[in-house]
């Protein structure tokens, strides 16, 4: 396999892992955890690297995980005091941890491996170069094996606990009555998120981890309400973003992480516009329709309530916060459907109009 293909494979695996994981974050409205964790793991990684001087050491991941857990614990503790706003506590904590990391990186590791480029941009372009060597045999790039393992873990977890996860996501109160322990599950899932963030962080850097954990799932969220479909759509978008972004990066001769993040974001924006049900265009059409019905009913209601039979056009027009155009449109629809009568005195409601009004009021 050529280097480019390996890099592609790693990028795709990373994207799928992050997009899958992120679905649960987005559904639970906890996307910011991704941002926080991706910053908080830095000191853990750096300290482990300082100690073991080996980039492929599993200690890096473990240490990073501990760093992440430290952040979670500190934030919980601060929140429990009730003295500080929750989001602020999160921001303060992960920034502090990240700062420790940056300082370490600049002081102790001046030489090659860690600098802001790696931290922000990750190391995707170089990831395929480092092989995993077992017993003197080069098997595959280390990053590939790592991400493949994480992916397997994640998918297994999701498949086994699919029902429970679904319940927990959408109704944790209900899942408690069924005897599942949402707290326990939540903890395991949080651990998985940490493992994902930590493994992906080294390859993808902080920005891409966050981008892939939020943008593709958010896009999927707009397209469906079903968890399974969301997972599939999210990972697909992750794959597409990583492929396009990678080639964009190669073409511009820069780290591919920035491009991949941007592409994922652009796909999201396009979906916001064009999504069939939730998209802006679709909604405008629907809202326009609903608004028309509402105005027709309002028009009839105004006629019905008055003692006089006939209401002058101006009075009617001025009674509701609609534009001239909306008023005339409502008028013409009511006219066509024979819900109103018109004369020189003004407008009045007909029997059919009254029936329609009564029906729509029932439906309210």
């Amino acid at each position, binding site marked *: 396999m050529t280097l480019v293909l390996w890099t592609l494979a790693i990028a795709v695996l990373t994207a799928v892992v992050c997009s899958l994981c992120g679905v649960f974050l987005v559904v639970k409205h906890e996307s910011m955890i991704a941002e926080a964790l991706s910053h908080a793991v830095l000191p853990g990684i750096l300290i482990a690297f300082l100690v073991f001087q080996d980039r492929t050491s599993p200690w890096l991941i473990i240490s990073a995980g501990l760093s992440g857990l430290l952040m979670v614990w500190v934030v919980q503790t601060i929140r429990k005091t009730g003295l500080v706003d929750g989001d602020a506590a999160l921001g303060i904590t992960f920034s502090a941890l990240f700062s420790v990391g940056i300082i370490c990186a600049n002081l102790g590791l001046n030489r090659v491996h860690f600098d802001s480029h790696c931290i922000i941009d990750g190391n995707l372009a170089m990831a395929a170069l480092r092989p995993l060597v077992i017993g003197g045999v080069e098997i595959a790039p280390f990053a590939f094996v790592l991400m493949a393992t994480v992916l397997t873990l994640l998918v297994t977890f999701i498949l086994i606990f699919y029902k429970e996860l679904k319940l927990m996501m959408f109704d944790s109160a209900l899942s408690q009555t069924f005897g599942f322990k949402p707290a326990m599950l939540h903890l395991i899932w949080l651990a998985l998120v940490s493992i994902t963030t930590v493994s992906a962080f080294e390859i993808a850097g902080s920005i891409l981890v966050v981008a892939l954990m939020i943008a593709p799932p958010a896009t999927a969220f707009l397209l469906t309400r079903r968890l399974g479909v969301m997972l599939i759509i999210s990972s697909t978008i992750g794959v597409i973003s990583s492929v396009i972004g990678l080639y964009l990066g190669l073409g511009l001769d820069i780290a591919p992480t920035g491009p991949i993040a941007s592409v994922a974001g652009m796909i999201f924006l396009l979906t916001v516009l064009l999504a069939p049900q939730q998209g802006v265009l679709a909604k405008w059409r629907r809202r326009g329709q*609903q608004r028309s019905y*509402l105005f027709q009913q*309002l028009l009839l*209601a*105004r006629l019905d*309530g008055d003692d006089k039979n006939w209401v002058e056009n101006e009075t009617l027009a001025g009674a509701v*916060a609609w534009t001239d155009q909306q008023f005339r449109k409502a008028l013409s629809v009511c006219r066509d459907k024979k819900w109103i009568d018109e004369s020189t005195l003004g407008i009045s409601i007909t029997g059919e109009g009254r029936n329609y009004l009564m029906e729509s*009021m029932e439906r*309210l």
Partner: protein
Amino acid sequence: MPTANPAIAIKGLTVAYDSVPVLWNVDLTIEQGVMMGVVGPNGAGKSTLLKAVLGVVPTLAGEVQVLGKRFSAHRQQIGYVPQRTSVDWDFPTTVLDLVKMGTYGRLGWFRRPGAKEKHDALAALDRFEMREFANRQIGELSGGQQQRAFLARAYVQDAPIYFLDEPFAAVDATTEKAIIRLLKSLRDEGKTIVVVHHDLTTIMDYFDAITLVNKKIISSGPVATAFTSDLLNKTYGGPIKNCGIDCGFAQPPVQLRHPSAGNAPGIGATSVEADDA
């Protein structure tokens, strides 16, 4: 009898969010000097009704008149006591400061509250027996004290009308009685009090008039006539028991005090049990 202007006159009010009507064609008149309860199920539009009169939500149709004139916020005519859950109790402000906020409306843009405002605020606190808490942080108050602080804020506005949104949620019975006493004394001074209320068992005792809302006005008027089991059926969409009335006629109710004092507002189900027959 000379007809004074009604405190609030609403005609044809329709409010819609996203083209979905939340309040439909509401006609409502609230006379001056009356203590009115507003009840209805969750999502019925009760809070929206108050907010629409205050001009805080955009309306699709209808007019609102306050004391005979079109409502204008600048006239400071309605004092608003918000739901407890919508207040940031950790906000750095003392009780005195909170009440002084009620004077901001009359101060205009660049004037600061001065000695007069402080004096008025202290007088308002006296009225509600909160003077000793003037320098306390609002987060350190009990539920009843919090309500009284907000009432003082409305009082300092010198408003003839008070709107209260679920004031008795998560407040114990003694405190509730104390607040009702305060509200009734305000009403005896000629103020008009409108309360969004969730506990059907206490309606007869507290209010002169009642409005039943479920997106539309189901009924509105004196408690004796507007609060019947039929109308409650229509409002809540099902038979209600244990609400303190019997067969739709005003009798001295059995005061069923539900242990719902600790519940969040709007969980009407704890004070209303739908018949499962």
